[in-house]
């Protein structure tokens, strides 16, 4: 059934269809309507879950960690400084291998205080070990939430589903709402191998020694470094598993096929614009205009950022003249994080393109299509690399 609703309601509906059992959240703009909708679902018995209104985001993630450790399907959502306040617990959730799913309605971070959209919040958390999916529209939000629960419990790694605050969270758009029975067939009940079980008393994640050790039953137990290596290997393998889950989703719901990147007019393109989130769809308009003006250009949206789909991205960019990366985030004192990652992935590629980096829209500064057009035209016209520092678009002072 098609409905017209906001991005936050698309996310909440995905959580309801996924039959989350414990929801703990603290309100923060622009995530608030998502958790309000979930509390309505719980209150009206449309969703059989415990809704726990906590006093902070740190506690929200702590509750999800506890609920997930007890073997239930846990969900939370946040934005901006709320996500940063969770940081210590984010590391814990992934180190403990708990399949929590969280939506992040992307917002800039203070100081100075801002409530508007950019990607600095989730980008600043890219190295904690969580899987990061970015949705470009409302359909991708609801579909990604459902896929996220399946992925998280398959690989025992928590998943963040990120979408642009306001631009997607508060705008209304038609999207297909999957049938409950089909979601049930896609997403099996959560039955973890390890959980807090009074029949089998034990401790999880207490002080873990630098070296391996013999457990009380004689089995050699891993040290910290083995556990972290296993997490990294599992994250790399999760690329293939996510592609399989996406194919399975496509079979049942008829949508999918591009789990890592979405390419638009890239096949014959010499130039490729690259962006994350709704910006990649805004760029499609610019690309259409430039095509009419005779530029061979396409746009690539990156939908899975961690684990980084480096092979797919290298395949997509090999042989092109120039990749132009637009980012709503920055590693201060260096470059845009996506730009750094793509540049690093291309290092071994003999036919690697030039690569340019533009920083846009921090703190919700409006990104005008004319500005994108201007930047792309300049990048297509320049015959060599621009200096290896990011260019900022739209500065007025």
């Amino acid at each position, binding site marked *: 059934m098609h409905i017209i609703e906001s991005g936050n309601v698309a996310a909440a509906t995905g959580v309801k269809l996924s039959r989350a059992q414990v929801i703990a959240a603290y309100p923060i703009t622009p995530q608030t309507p998502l958790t309000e909708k979930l509390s309505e679902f719980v209150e009206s018995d449309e969703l059989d879950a415990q809704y726990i209104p906590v006093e902070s985001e740190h506690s929200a993630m702590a509750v999800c960690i506890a609920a997930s450790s007890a073997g239930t399907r846990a969900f939370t959502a946040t934005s901006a400084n709320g996500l940063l306040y969770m940081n210590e617990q984010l590391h814990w959730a992934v180190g*403990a291998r708990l399949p929590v799913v969280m939506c992040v309605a992307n917002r800039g971070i203070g100081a100075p205080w801002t409530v508007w959209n950019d990607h600095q919040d989730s980008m600043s958390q890219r190295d904690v070990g969580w899987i990061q999916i970015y949705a470009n529209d409302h359909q991708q939000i609801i579909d990604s939430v459902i896929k996220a629960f399946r992925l998280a419990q398959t690989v025992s790694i928590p998943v963040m589903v990120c979408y642009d605050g306001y631009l997607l969270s508060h705008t209304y758009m038609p999207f297909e709402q999957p049938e409950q029975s089909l979601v049930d067939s896609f997403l099996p009940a959560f039955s973890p191998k*390890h959980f807090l079980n009074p029949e089998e008393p*034990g401790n*999880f994640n*207490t002080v873990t020694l630098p070296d391996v*050790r013999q*457990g*009380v039953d004689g089995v050699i*137990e891993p040290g910290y470094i083995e556990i972290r290596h296993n997490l990294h290997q599992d994250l790399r*393998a999760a690329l293939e598993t996510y592609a399989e889950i996406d194919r399975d989703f496509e079979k049942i719901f008829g949508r999918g096929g591009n789990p890592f990147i979405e390419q638009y007019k890239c096949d014959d393109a010499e130039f490729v614009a690259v962006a994350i989130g709704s910006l990649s769809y805004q760029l499609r308009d610019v690309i259409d205009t430039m095509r009419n003006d005779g530029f061979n250009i396409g746009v690539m949206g990156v939908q899975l950022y961690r684990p980084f789909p480096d092979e797919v991205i290298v395949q997509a960019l090999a042989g092109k003249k120039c990749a132009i990366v637009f980012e709503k985030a920055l590693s201060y004192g260096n470059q845009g994080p996506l730009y750094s990652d793509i540049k690093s992935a291309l290092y071994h590629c003999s036919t690697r393109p030039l690569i340019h980096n533009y920083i846009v829209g921090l703190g919700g500064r409006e990104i005008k299509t004319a500005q994108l057009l201007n930047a792309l035209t300049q990048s297509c016209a320049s015959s060599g690399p621009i200096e290896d520092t990011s260019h900022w678009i739209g500065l007025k002072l």
Partner: protein
Amino acid sequence: MTDRKYCKMISRSKPGPGDGGKTGSWRVLRPIINNEKCIPVKAKKKACFNCWLYCPDCVVTKTIPPTINLEYCKGCGICAEECPASAIEMVDEARFIVKEK
């Protein structure tokens, strides 16, 4: 579906002696029981056993005389603090290292 077995390694421990490793190596001070002062030894009765009761690592036996498992005793000194007869002395481990040499 890939047949990868995910999450093969987690940090978990089961109840039992020594699951945290041989923690006796952490010890700086070693508890030595003076049986001449120890209440159950003197009274020849199962009495007192504050050392057994208060030991956070359960390395003291409820026997006459009480014994301390030095493989796991971390040398915290709680037993010495709680002994009403001051029968337990915390002795610098360096003394024993010299002897062992």
